[in-house]
């Protein structure tokens, strides 16, 4: 009997231990240091009071993009109160314990910037939200009738400025990591070349002007290299080179199609869309060359435009669905795909939680911001005409 009880206890303990969340990661749970977010998460419920005008509007927008929902105080998990008479002041209170988690006044800059700073400070204190992105920027392509230019703005579309004014096709901007500069493709000199433009000075230089087309620039996170699609050797393939133009390496050699290279956060791998033996998929290859490895995205068609999250865990991409496109994520080693929202061309925010992307609207496209865990999305402030191909500064 004693032995049986012992066996039963051991069995029960075994079950308990085996099902404990500490020891078995759920399929869709991603551990990022101390921050954990799950797919299909509910938004954090916040109430907002005391603010007005532009500050209220910016705070609301920021918090909603970053995975919160603004509700009456009685339903909130956290209360945000404050004022913006002259300067922005804000408090974050835990609705259950009534503890004040944040009490701060902001000085300097515009009220809008102060509101963004408050939003970031709030989000930093919410569990599982990661770092705030309210003070970041995006670059994008703006259609100007027959041509297109590169625009830059706050992540929410405010403060938009044109970076180019060439009356040509300027496309596919990619933010240079850690710098106030962007790469993009320009047709200005008669055929597509890749340029690097310093946004502080406006100066730009051609970095890839090979024969044929120089497309889809993607700088490595360690700032050492640039991946791109070149046709200089007779067909479109993925190439990498040092940012000073030396060391051009052809990474793929095939008559199949490759497009949209992006980098792993450790700058070791280039991930891109390709077709191998009639099969479309996402692949990765070492930046110094080697075999292509498939990143499984079973269940969706024609994955393209991959972007690897800064924390290394996810690859966001565009999948084709009948007459439209969807933003999807897949674990970076491949596997189960989650379809998030209708749209295309995703670019990760520095927090590896938000994505900026384009969605078709009428005859053109608009930019939109997605919170991956809650699937909430909000359109970026409308830039005139059609905007697409966004790149989030990191």
């Amino acid at each position, binding site marked *: 009997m004693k032995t049986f009880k012992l066996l039963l206890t051991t069995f029960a303990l075994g079950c308990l231990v085996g099902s404990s969340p500490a020891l078995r990661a759920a399929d869709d749970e991603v551990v990022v240091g101390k921050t954990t977010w799950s797919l299909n998460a509910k938004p954090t419920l916040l109430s907002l009071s005391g603010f007005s005008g532009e500050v209220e509007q910016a705070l609301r927008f920021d918090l909603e993009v970053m995975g919160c929902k603004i509700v009456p105080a009685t339903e909130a998990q956290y209360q945000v109160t404050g004022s913006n008479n002259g300067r922005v002041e804000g408090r974050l209170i835990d609705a259950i314990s009534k503890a004040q988690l944040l009490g701060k006044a902001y000085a300097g800059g515009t009220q809008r910037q102060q509101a963004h700073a408050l939003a970031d400070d709030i989000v930093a204190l919410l569990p599982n939200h990661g770092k705030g992105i309210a003070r970041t920027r995006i670059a994008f392509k703006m259609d100007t009738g027959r041509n297109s230019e590169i625009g830059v703005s706050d992540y929410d579309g405010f403060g938009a400025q044109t970076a180019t004014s060439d009356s040509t096709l300027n496309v596919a901007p990619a933010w240079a990591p850690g710098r106030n500069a962007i790469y993009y493709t320009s047709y200005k000199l008669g055929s597509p070349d890749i340029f690097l433009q310093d946004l502080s000075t406006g100066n730009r230089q051609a970095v890839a002007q090979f*024969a044929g087309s120089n*497309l889809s620039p993607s700088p490595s996170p360690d700032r050492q290299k640039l991946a791109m699609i070149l046709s200089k050797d007779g067909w479109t393939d993925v190439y990498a080179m040092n940012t000073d133009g030396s060391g051009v390496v052809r990474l793929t050699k095939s008559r199949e199609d490759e497009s949209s290279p992006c980098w792993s956060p450790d700058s070791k791998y280039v991930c891109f869309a390709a077709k191998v033996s009639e099969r479309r998929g996402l692949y990765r290859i070492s930046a110094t060359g080697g075999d292509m490895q498939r990143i499984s995205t079973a269940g969706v068609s024609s994955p393209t435009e991959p972007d690897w999250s800064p924390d290394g865990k996810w690859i966001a991409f565009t999948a084709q669905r009948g007459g439209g496109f969807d933003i999807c994520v897949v674990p970076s080693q491949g596997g189960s795909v989650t379809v998030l929202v209708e749209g295309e061309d995703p670019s990760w925010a520095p927090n590896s939680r938000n994505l900026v992307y384009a969605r078709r609207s009428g005859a053109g496209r608009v930019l939109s911001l997605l919170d991956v865990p809650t699937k909430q999305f909000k359109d970026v402030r409308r830039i005139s005409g059609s905007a697409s191909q966004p790149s989030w500064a990191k």
Partner: protein
Amino acid sequence: MKLNRLATLLTLGLALTTLVATGCKKGPGYKTDIPGRTGGGTASSRPLTGPGLGQPLNSPDLAGGTTVTPIDPEYGIPPSAKHGHEGWAEDATALAAESVHFAFDSATVRNDDRAKLENVASYLKTHATNAVRVEGNCDKRGTEEYNRSLGERRALAAREELVKLGIAPDRLDTISYGEDRPADPADNDGAYAKNRRADFILLSPPGR
């Protein structure tokens, strides 16, 4: 006299074949004086030199000879050098009827379009100073950078067919416009089919 002329032609043919067979290299090209072809109303009697110093020559279609450009089945033919035809006049209508079209998501030139490509090749053979820019385009049912890459493949594929028909690669520039320059902006299958195309823009040297 006849034998001499034949010998000259054969030697020149051999020289040109060697020149073209070595592929399109960047940098100074091999330059040789070729007397203009006499006889025939359409053949040009000017010396066949390129637009600038060191540019590879347009090769005439020599009777009995074929220009041989090695086409690596895996890599295709390297595109023409940049700015080779800068400043040349552009005519989008001259060869507009010869635009070739592609199946969805394909860069394979269709057999149905053989006749059109032969027309373009024929035009270039009888207008020896002209060049052509092959422009690859897509319908909007793909993502933007994918389409830009696909348009490039369409342009390169059409160009390759022209090279196989005997046109020197450096007379053929390529460019991709992705989905940016539709022939028909409408949202229907007919419009999409029109947009999946390679257009041939006739280029004429300045001063002509």
